[in-house]
């Protein structure tokens, strides 16, 4: 047993660090570090920089433009990315649709769509959840009826993250209403500019417009945009979800946000001393720091099992639960650390490019909105309760 990285992995880490040092614009890392909301152009800028280096789709096969990294290299990259306060890669095209097309798409589809994901020609969003199909995703009701060389789509998707920026949406649709619910689903690629599509923003708890409802009324989609076979969409959907969970523990994000928390606790005062020296607060911080150190090793153990040929799968559910609990606890402590100055609601201060005067300590305005926003972590990607169901079935055999 040896927890250190190999010399090759260390060299890789240095290479990655140098890349972030040289290529990550300070303007972007400052926005991320301060917890500001990025604009579409900010995200596109960072995608272009990563793509130029060939590191945007880092788990794609080399044939389609991936760098051919091991799971450990990807872990190192994801961690360093978070520690450098790089923007997150917008996952919908790169991490979700890409792997599905590579595994199940036709040659024409791969050639048509994959390069456009890399060069930013298309901004994809995800059409999975519906008002009546959340945890019970297979209960979805949006229909696609074949008429000649098009499908006619009717229904509604919801919680569509960053759908307001999207040119394209990949959708789960029902193509056979008579089959068992998992067996009548297909996977369609739909142009967001098609007639009959309407996008309505949903304002979230922190005031942010991050997610949307998408309505489909007699939307015509070319049959060529069906991925794989008709009625096999559930298989592809589940395959996509395992990719969604690759970096699900978010260890890098937690390390970076914990470092930030330590700075804030050092700076804030309570009872005449630094908050970091308050025994109760120090204990709360130490608990989550230890949990995080344990989590990092748990995460690496799971990855090492994958690298050694073992099956990943349900173990990612464990990473998701614990990883999101840790991330939520850190945002909770950060909110508490700002004391009364976590209260002022200054929506403009959350936006990239705001240059106004802070109320209270720098970045205090972000603390409570960020805490509330991150309640989503235990809900999306399969709620933590759904993850426990998966663990019970797949790992515990209950």
């Amino acid at each position, binding site marked *: *047993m*040896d*927890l*250190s*990285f*190999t010399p090759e*992995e260390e060299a890789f880490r240095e290479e990655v660090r140098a890349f972030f040092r040289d290529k990550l614009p300070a303007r972007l890392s400052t926005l991320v570090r301060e917890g500001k909301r990025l604009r579409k152009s900010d995200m596109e800028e960072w995608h272009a920089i990563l793509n130029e280096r060939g590191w945007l789709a880092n788990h794609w096969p080399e044939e389609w433009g991936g760098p051919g990294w091991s799971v*450990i290299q990807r872990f190192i990259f994801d961690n360093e990315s978070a520690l450098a306060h790089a923007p997150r890669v917008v996952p919908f095209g790169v991490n979700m649709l890409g792997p599905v097309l590579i595994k199940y798409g036709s040659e024409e589809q791969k050639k048509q769509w994959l390069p456009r994901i890399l060069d930013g020609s298309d901004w994809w969003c995800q059409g999975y959840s519906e008002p009546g199909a959340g945890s019970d995703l297979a209960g979805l009701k949006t229909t696609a009826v074949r008429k000649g060389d098009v499908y006619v789509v009717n229904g509604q998707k919801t919680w569509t993250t960053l759908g307001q920026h999207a040119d394209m949406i990949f959708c789960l649709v029902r193509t056979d209403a008579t089959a068992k619910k998992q067996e009548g689903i297909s996977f369609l690629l739909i142009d967001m500019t098609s007639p009959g599509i309407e996008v309505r923003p949903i304002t979230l708890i922190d005031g942010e417009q991050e997610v949307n409802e998408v309505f489909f009324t007699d939307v015509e989609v070319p049959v060529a945009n069906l991925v794989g076979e008709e009625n096999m969409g559930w298989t592809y959907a589940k395959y996509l979800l395992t990719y969604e969970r690759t970096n699900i523990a978010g260890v890098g994000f937690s390390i970076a946000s914990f470092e930030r928390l330590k700075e804030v606790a050092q700076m804030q005062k309570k009872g005449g001393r630094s908050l970091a020296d308050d025994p109760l607060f*120090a*204990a709360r911080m*130490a*608990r989550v720091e*230890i*949990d995080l*150190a*344990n*989590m*990092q*090793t*748990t995460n*690496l*153990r799971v990855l*090492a*099992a994958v690298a*050694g040929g073992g099956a990943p799968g349900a173990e990612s559910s*464990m990473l998701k*639960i*614990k990883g999101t609990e840790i991330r939520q606890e850190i945002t909770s402590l950060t909110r508490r650390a700002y004391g009364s100055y976590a209260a002022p609601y200054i929506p403009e201060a959350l936006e990239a490019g705001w240059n106004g005067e802070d109320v209270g300590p720098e970045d205090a305005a972000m603390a409570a909105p960020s805490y509330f926003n991150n309640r989503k972590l235990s809900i999306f990607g399969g709620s933590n*309760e759904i*993850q*426990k*169901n998966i*663990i*019970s079935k797949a*790992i*515990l*055999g*209950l």
Partner: protein
Amino acid sequence: MNFEHTDDRRMLADTLVRALRDGYPIETRNAGAYGETGYDAGVWQQLTELGIVSALFDEATGGFGGSGFDIMVVFEALGRALVVEPFLGALMAGRALAKAGGHDETLAGIVSGETIAAFAHDDGATPVTATKSGDGWTLSGTKAVVSQAGAASVFVVTVEQDGDPLVLLVPADTAGVSVRSFNVVEGGAAGDVTFENVTLGADARVGGEGQGQAIVDAAVGAGLLALSAEAVGAMEFVKEATLGYLRDRKQFGVPIGKFQALQHRMATVLLEIEQAHSAVINAASAFDGDDTKARERALAAAKYTIGRTGALVAEETIQLHGGIGMTWEYAVSHYAKRLVMIDHQLGDEDYHLQRYIALG
């Protein structure tokens, strides 16, 4: 990065696990653990003949292992079988002597398993003091709840002093040494060791001037790693037993493991055990490193983690088993007691959390 044990270490673990599975059923364990001496001398001899103690020491000390991961695999296996024989004392007293150098004969006896040793560290109501007398010392006071004190023929005793602690080697038959032995709640034995004007020569000293803290840290560090690994071994046993019960036990016409309320509790138990396992790996990895602060921090983190998780696993396994988990006859109840009471040895979860903060 590699999370596989070496072949040698895996073989050691397999040998030990098999020997304990075949030769140490819970009835044998309990007969010793709740018997008069709190352990089984025959079992102790068989296990030491397998070289289990030698695996805890390096070649320079006459053993064949001694790394953090050796301690981890041995104590994980011991924990899985709920072993009460005096391995912890051998490890801690032995590591203290090995760190200090000298007392070679006693150390050789400990490593071979012929000598049973105890590490007498926590003070009782009357703390142990050492008064200089001639070249040596006069020792008075009581060490509290020393693991397997009654079985030990030799004590390694720590004495708090201004500056550096004093460490002394005291044979149990020295005039003025008495042991009040008792069984402990989860099985096994301990004792209060009282020193009444015990006269010791200069040769009783373990280590030289200024070495005391390093010796105590070596012994206690090894003990913390051992207890943490033991706890994870016990958790693994409990996890398997509980899963078996959830599959077998039927109520309302179905196995109770079909109920989501129980599934989610069990999933949480699994998660926390994996986290505890990672904490022990982190501690074992830091144990042999040069960075003493990182080592002490990882050890504190591990003991804190298993203290918290041990109680959780114990309480959950009893709850998930229902009434049967409350019975003396069923093995799980004894594991649950060990998992709770292990937090009372070498500092509890709060103590180690504070230590972790202080080291930060």
